């Protein structure tokens, strides 16, 4: 079942951002605290809280290793609770070690085939969860060894009583039993598997119950019609009339599998049970029934759907709890698919209209979220008359979550509209309602898809004001988001249109007061040049960038350097040598040290693009001069650059293959400074890794060398941290700090 789909799948919290909480460092009791692993496989959290131990989330751990992990954990034991747990674990270790060593010694003379099975059976009740889990996962081996008869009479009764176990063991058990029919003697005996699954279907953990229900559904297919009525249907009835709501929720998922194969009389009973669950006292059961309503409707006769399911649906859709009502929206889709147009109009639409205007935002959110499914289910005519107006309301809903969900559906909605009159409908009925920035951003991000539906010209006219507005938004994150869409927009709009409307924006971002924006703008320029070509760059971008080299603000002068770093590769040798290099070299005389060492870095960066001549005659002297600079950081980077340039020169003089390339001096220690050759991977993953190594090294170096000697690496912060926003914040701060203060801080 979908747990609380509205709130807990939404990113919701103050200021629109949702609060993700990290697991506590204080989690000391490692007994029952677990989290489902990414592959659905459960694992104990405690393993990850033990420092120095990195166990893969697989279950095939050797007992000895586990014992070691626990021992280490015990060493840090905090408080009595932990200690108690530890004591138990220690005992387990001893217990686990016993049979394991025994097996090695006794393998020779006992009954070879029996011994491993005996160990497996004994471990079914071992005190160590992991061993029990391993044993449960090999349940089929045990059953095979016991034979069908003993499996039915001994193993299954034992398993039925093991519901006291840990969730992960129960989950594995529920899964195993789904494939057990062959091991108990084939379909004739499939009903023997029902008792253990029945008890598993009442446990409190939803994952275990769901798995048990899944297995029951699987097994129901293996029952003969007679056995189904003799064993399976009574089980469903028992669960449906159980005292606790866990069993009743489990029952909801079983009706649809036994209904099609039951006799007429039993069918009536099943429907009766389902009806009573739909009006159960506990909201949990009503929710389970509501979520299975559509599935059940599909297996019912059309008459019954109209006479029974529709009233149930109407009731659930007007339940007093909005957590139930919102699930009825989903059922709406399946029911509408079964009915004719007239019936939909008469039976389903009143409820749907009501849901779209529900008082609760969570119900409206569900309608928005399921909109394209609804649209397909009700057909084009009703869509036109009812859904489009409802959609307009959702787009201007007072709750941002609802608007956002609706905005996500704009694309699919437009695609599903009939070709005829599609464009006018979108232009007149949908676009005018798209007001808030989030919604517009969403549309812009899907621009290439929308473009396929209607012409770009038309769309751009209505979107351009939004883009300009967002580009100047007071929140830098919004600006950042829009920058990232620029290359996409440029590709869609074409050169002329771009020059006319958006070029000035792109340049304005270069002098933004937030570093992250300036950096993104730089990258943006590079992508634009890749799109529009060097000629365009030479005429429009490069002159504007180079003018900034004379800006009184040293940050803007640095932006020029960053732009050159980014553009040089895209622009090619000629432009770089003729237009950019002189400016860079001129800036080597800047009075701010930050600019000077960035010149050194830029020279290193563009080195591979320049020819030998320029390197030898222009770059090298300047670098050598910088190498004598009074500032130690400038010196440091100049030397780095000199060695890189020297290597490049050597390579040009005596060409060698890339693979034989001798490593640059300091390359081992300073990955981040290694000049990037043209053929080298410039992927993000690479950058990530490098950045991580770099910042780690920077921290270490700073630590070891002490404040006075912290050289270049101290500056790596603003070079390498480019991937996450919090890091960008740091980067920004670092860059804005006058240089000498930074040193003293580190």
């Amino acid at each position, binding site marked *: 079942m979908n747990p609380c789909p509205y709130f807990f799948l939404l990113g919701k919290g103050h200021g629109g951002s949702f609060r993700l909480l990290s697991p506590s460092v204080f989690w000391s009791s490692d007994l029952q605290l677990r989290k489902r692993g990414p592959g659905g496989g459960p694992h104990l959290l405690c393993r990850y809280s033990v420092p120095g131990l990195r166990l893969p989330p697989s279950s095939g751990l050797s007992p000895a290793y586990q014992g070691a992990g626990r021992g280490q954990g015990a060493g840090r034991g905090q408080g009595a609770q932990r200690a108690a747990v530890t004591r138990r674990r220690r005992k387990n270790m001893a217990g686990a070690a016993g049979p394991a060593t025994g097996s090695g010694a006794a393998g020779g003379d006992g009954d070879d085939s029996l011994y491993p099975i005996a160990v497996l059976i004994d471990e079914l009740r071992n005190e160590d969860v992991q061993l029990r889990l391993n044993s449960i996962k090999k349940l089929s081996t045990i059953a095979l060894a016991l034979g069908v008869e003993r499996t039915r009479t001994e193993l299954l009764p034992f398993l039925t009583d093991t519901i006291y176990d840990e969730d992960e063991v129960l989950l594995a058990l529920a899964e195993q039993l789904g494939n057990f029919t062959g091991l108990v003697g084939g379909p004739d005996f499939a009903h023997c598997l029902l008792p253990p699954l029945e008890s598993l279907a009442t446990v409190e953990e939803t994952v275990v119950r769901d798995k048990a229900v899944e297995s029951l559904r699987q097994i129901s297919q293996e029952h003969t019609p007679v056995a189904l009525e003799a064993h399976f249907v009574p089980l469903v009835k028992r669960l449906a009339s159980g005292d606790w709501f866990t069993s009743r929720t489990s029952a909801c998922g079983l009706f649809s599998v036994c209904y099609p194969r039951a006799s007429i009389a039993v069918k009536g009973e099943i429907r009766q049970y389902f009806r009573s669950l739909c009006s159960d006292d506990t909201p949990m059961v009503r929710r389970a029934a509501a979520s299975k309503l559509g599935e059940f409707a599909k297996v019912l006769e059309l008459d019954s759907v109209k006479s029974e399911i529709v009233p149930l649906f109407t009731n659930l859709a007007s339940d007093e709890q909005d957590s139930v009502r919102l699930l009825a929206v989903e059922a709406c889709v399946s029911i509408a698919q079964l009915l004719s147009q007239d019936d939909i109009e008469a039976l389903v639409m009143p409820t749907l209209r009501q849901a779209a205007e529900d*008082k609760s935002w969570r119900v409206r959110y569900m309608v928005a979220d399921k909109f394209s499914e609804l649209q397909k289910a009700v057909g084009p005519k009703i869509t036109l008359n009812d859904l489009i107006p409802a959609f307009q309301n959702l787009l201007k809903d007072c709750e941002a979550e609802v608007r956002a969900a609706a905005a996500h559906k704009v694309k699919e909605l437009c695609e599903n509209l009939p070709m005829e009159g599609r464009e006018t409908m979108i232009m007149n009925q949908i676009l005018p309602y798209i007001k808030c920035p989030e919604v517009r951003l969403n549309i812009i991000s899907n621009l290439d898809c929308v473009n396929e539906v209607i012409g770009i010209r038309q769309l751009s006219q209505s979107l351009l004001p939004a883009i300009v507005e967002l580009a100047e938004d007071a929140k830098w994150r919004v600006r950042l988001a829009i920058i990232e869409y620029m290359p996409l927009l440029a590709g869609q709009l074409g050169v002329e249109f771009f020059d006319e409307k958006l070029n000035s924006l792109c340049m304005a971002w270069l002098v933004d007061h937030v570093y992250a924006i300036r950096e993104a703008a730089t990258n943006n320029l590079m992508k634009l040049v890749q799109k529009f070509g060097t000629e365009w760059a030479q005429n429009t971008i490069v002159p504007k960038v180079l003018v900034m080299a004379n800006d009184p603000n040293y940050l803007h002068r640095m932006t020029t350097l960053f732009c050159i770093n980014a553009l040089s590769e895209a622009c090619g040798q000629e432009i770089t040598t003729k237009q950019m290099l002189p400016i860079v070299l001129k800036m080597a005389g800047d009075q701010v040290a930050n600019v000077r060492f960035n010149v050194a870095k830029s020279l290193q960066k563009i080195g591979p693009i320049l020819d030998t001549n320029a390197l030898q005659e222009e770059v090298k002297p300047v670098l050598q001069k910088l190498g004598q600079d009074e500032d130690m950081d400038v010196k440091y980077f100049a030397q780095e650059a000199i060695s890189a340039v020297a290597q490049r020169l050597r390579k040009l003089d005596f060409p060698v293959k890339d693979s034989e390339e001798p490593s640059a001096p300091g390359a081992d220690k300073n990955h981040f400074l290694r000049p990037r050759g043209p053929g080298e991977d410039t992927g993000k993953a690479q950058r990530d890794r490098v950045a991580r190594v770099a910042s780690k090294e920077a921290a270490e170096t700073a630590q070891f060398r002490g404040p006075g000697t912290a050289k270049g690496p101290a500056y790596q912060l603003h070079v390498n941290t480019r991937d996450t926003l919090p890091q960008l914040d740091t980067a920004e701060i670092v860059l804005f700090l006058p240089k000498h203060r930074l040193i003293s801080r580190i």
Partner: protein
Amino acid sequence: QLLQLNSRKINNSIKKWRRTNVFFVYFNYTADIISTVEFNHSGELLATGDKGGRVVIFQQEQENKIQSHSRGEYNVYSTFQSHEPEFDYLKSLEIEEKINKIRWLPQKNAAQFLLSTNDKTIKLWKISERDKRPEGYNLKEEDGRYRDPTTVTTLRVPVFRPMDLMVEASPRRIFANAHTYHINSISINSDYETYLSADDLRINLWHLEITDRSFNIVDIKPANMEELTEVITAAEFHPNSCNTFVYSSSKGTIRLCDMRASALCDRHSKLFEEPEDPSNRSFFSEIISSISDVKFSHSGRYMMTRDYLSVKIWDLNMENRPVETYQVHEYLRSKLCSLYENDCIFDKFECCWNGSDSVVMTGSYNNFFRMFDRNTKRDITLEASRENNKPRTVLKPRKVCASGKRKKDEISVDSLDFNKKILHTAWHPKENIIAVATTNNLYIFQDKVN
């Protein structure tokens, strides 16, 4: 008619309270100060939390269920350590293990579940019974001695055999790291899958099955902490409408929020506030108007709030004043100054409804507790103490002499012991059984039938 009958019985019962059980819970005076008392939904279990982080669960006597005289017998069912003292290394703060609140979950299967919280961390506990254990190993004897592996010729499948009943308490989930301030309330939603937790400035919404995420639904923290004028003192979900919750503030107001309207409930949909009587205004007005507890009636129509001197009952449909106000210890109004000096004025008294919402109960000083019958408007003061009553005796009503001449049997205000206070009380949801916690004793009383 039934209702009338019922209320007469309770009215009757107010006069004759008989103590059935007294549990003495002391090993260490400070470690076992009871900090919360809560019946489960059937009333069969009663949980107490103490300052030492322990939870003790009492179970109603089962065997003599037919014989009415022993209905109120409760015995210890399970004891476990719920919270341990911790240290927040980032803030250099000690986190007390004291249990602030316990809330039972609606029963979902044979096991029982409860949430317990200290200042920072909420835990979900499962309390389950086990009366069978597996027997039979292949490779060793039941006592752990290993068999010679060569003698294993047939496989044995373990069999479950009955054993003495064992009650296990196991931690199922830990909801941590969501509160910067101290948690004062937790409340489970009637949708059975979410709950809220409130600290001084924020209220978070949790899903009972999701521990790594919670949603902040109320935040009253001002941008500048110097502008802070009020804090959240208690919060509770409506008993049957899953979208409604209330929270009370130190200013004496109660805000009702509707989660349907918006995902963030910073704006309330109703504000319950009684205009202040200017003639009563004093230096202490603001302190004594602070609400220490808010509880919905079982019907969901009313809510009750406790401030320092009174209990007020509000109709959810009337925001401007309470429908009923009961003075708990009005005689203390003249002693506020000394109560301020010994910090008693900041005591947080809790209050509770009886099963049919016709009587309310709350604690006072000198180990007195008060009950008010809403239909007859009668009230009574009773005392919970070991000296005065042996088991199965009828409690005598007590009277405090407010002023003037002291009559026989009356106690003068000056002789009240302010160190003996009853902050936590609970009423069985179906029967006239109450649990009253004095500092470190738990008393369970029931009404005298016949």
